[in-house]
């Protein structure tokens, strides 16, 4: 394969940028959360690319741990969103501003 490391890093960086765009642009908490997962995924891709081109296994193991932590984080975050919805009947961030005033 003649595709270099930088091509993979560009793809990872673009995925990260798209995830950041979703976090800042959207109002739905669930979509914001999915964009956060996309950013984590972009970092995973960069880790695997670095690991492959460096010839070591450590980056792959890091991705393994990141996926574990991300699964735990998704379970807790969605539980928080459900609790929030039960209290406020909304998941839109512009209506979840009780702490700002």
């Amino acid at each position, binding site marked *: *394969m003649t*595709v*270099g*490391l*930088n091509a*993979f*890093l*560009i*793809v990872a*960086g*673009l*995925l*990260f*940028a*798209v*995830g*950041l*765009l*979703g976090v*800042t*642009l*959207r*109002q*739905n908490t*669930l*979509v914001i959360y*999915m*964009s956060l*997962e*996309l950013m984590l*995924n972009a970092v995973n*891709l960069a880790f*695997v690319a670095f*690991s*492959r081109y*460096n*010839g*070591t*296994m*450590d980056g*792959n*193991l890091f*991705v*393994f*741990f990141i*996926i*574990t932590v*991300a*699964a*735990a*984080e998704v*379970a807790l975050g*969605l*539980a*928080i*969103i*459900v609790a929030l919805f*039960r209290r406020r009947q909304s998941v*839109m961030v*512009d209506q979840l501003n009780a702490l700002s005033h």
Partner: protein
Amino acid sequence: MLDILFYVFSVITLIAAVLMVLTPNAVNGAMCMIVAFIGTAALFVLLEAYFLAVIQVVVYAGAVMVLFLFIIMLLDVDKGEGGATEYNDKLTIGASAIGFLLLVMLVFSAFSGAHLPEPGLSAVSENPEVFNSGVPFTTSSKSFGYSLFTKYMLPFQVAGFLLLAAMIGVIVVSKKYDIAED
């Protein structure tokens, strides 16, 4: 051949990610997210991380997105929310677009090859003794288990404990409390 596959999967992943961000319907966004995750898994296969590709499909595209779809279905967030209120006001849209473009320009200027030396890809089978400062890269999942139980023993235990803590935390957070209590 592999180069064409790289471009195909990269484009699929990026288009699915952009659609996920821009589509107003949360269920469609979740479906696009699944496509993006599977595209990333394909890129993992191109990088010869087969075990991680399988983990990616099973954990992310399987478990995590099913959880998301369940919550979207249960909360029914699309009902009563017009498409116009989905995005923030014009100032936020402009600021988000400018931030996005700046980040894209940063990515291209950093990684477009002019500034960083670009190492070539050496086949795993040809020279197994590559740089040898860490665990050498192999394609077998056996080396995962070996590393997890030798070099990464403590993080492995901590990850297991973290999953237990998350499980208990989810039970505590999603327990239904009496409203009169607070």
